[in-house]
């Protein structure tokens, strides 16, 4: 056998070993993570809302802490992402129904400002949309998220404690679950650890 063939087979053997190591690592990972943390990849979700600011559709810088006293539904999305666009009507409906009760949706578009502005003309958002490319990705990193898919949505309670993150498209049952948890937290019938365990997706 030539050196090249030996090298190829060695590569294969190492790959197979890597597969076994990977499966073993992923199998034990959840048991090693503290409660209330995000298990996706190497992500560890922070406990409280981080500080960052992004441009809104008018080009004004807006702090993510600009909605004092509200629980937040922070939805990361992009105009090129079909599942992201599919969930926007649901988020608008949710905002209509719950905005006056102190639950605020904030969209964060990981996209070009012009593309989002053009899209927003047709969509008529009833919640604020912040926009950025690298800045929006850095904002996601502030949450402790390893970030490679859209959409994803971060929930906070009224005290800006992070409750959980939902990867992928939102459906009604996810937001219904959030409302139940927020009510239980306010009523004192659920503690923060139980809330995080409930909303971890």
């Amino acid at each position, binding site marked *: 056998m030539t050196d090249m063939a030996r090298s190829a087979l060695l590569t294969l053997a190492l790959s197979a070993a890597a597969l076994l190591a990977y499966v073993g690592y992923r199998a034990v990972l959840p048991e090693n993570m503290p409660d209330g943390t995000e298990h*996706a990849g190497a992500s560890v979700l922070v406990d409280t809302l981080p500080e960052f600011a992004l441009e809104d559709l008018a080009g004004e810088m807006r702090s993510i802490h600009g909605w004092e006293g509200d629980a937040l539904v922070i939805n990361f999305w992009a105009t090129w992402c079909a599942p992201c666009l599919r969930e926007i009507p649901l988020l608008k409906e949710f905002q209509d129904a719950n905005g006056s009760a102190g639950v605020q949706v904030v969209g964060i578009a990981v996209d070009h400002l012009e593309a989002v502005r053009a899209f927003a003309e047709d969509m008529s958002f009833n919640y604020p949309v912040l926009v950025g490319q690298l800045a929006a990705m850095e904002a996601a990193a502030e949450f402790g998220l390893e970030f490679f898919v859209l959409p994803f949505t971060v929930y906070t309670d009224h005290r800006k404690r992070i409750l959980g993150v939902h990867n992928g498209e939102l459906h009604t049952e996810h937001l219904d679950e959030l409302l139940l948890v927020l009510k239980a937290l306010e009523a004192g019938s659920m503690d923060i650890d139980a809330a995080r365990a409930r909303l971890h997706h």
Partner: protein
Amino acid sequence: MTTTTALATARRLLLAVLAAVAVAAAQFNEPLPPEEAFPWIAFAEAGSVILSFQIPEGYYLYRHRFGFESLTDGVVLGMPELPEGRPHVDEFFGAVQIYRGDFQIRIPYLRSGAVNEMRVRLELQGCADIGYCYLPESWDRRVRLAGDD
């Protein structure tokens, strides 16, 4: 076993291992990291760079979102030969083509001088059926050209 046969076998097995990693990871009900969702290898054969993919079930790539670039002086890529994709009607973006499963893209190349290796840049973007899309990815790979043409 000849060197050529051994290399071809190793390539096929390596891609199978990458696909097996993706299948194993999918059991954990999390978004796969992009390199596991869209595993690929690159090699040169008969004057072309071949990009070979083995996409796990439930994931797909958009045909129109592919991009290719030579990062090596002295190696010029020709027109990529993309296979016909599967028709996919997107509710927002209309009729597009997507790739699932196994497929290859062939890109003819021309080289000048004694260039034995090149770096190829691949841009792609895809989604998962479960309801999320990946950010556009840009990946570089080295491809050995020596003795290929």
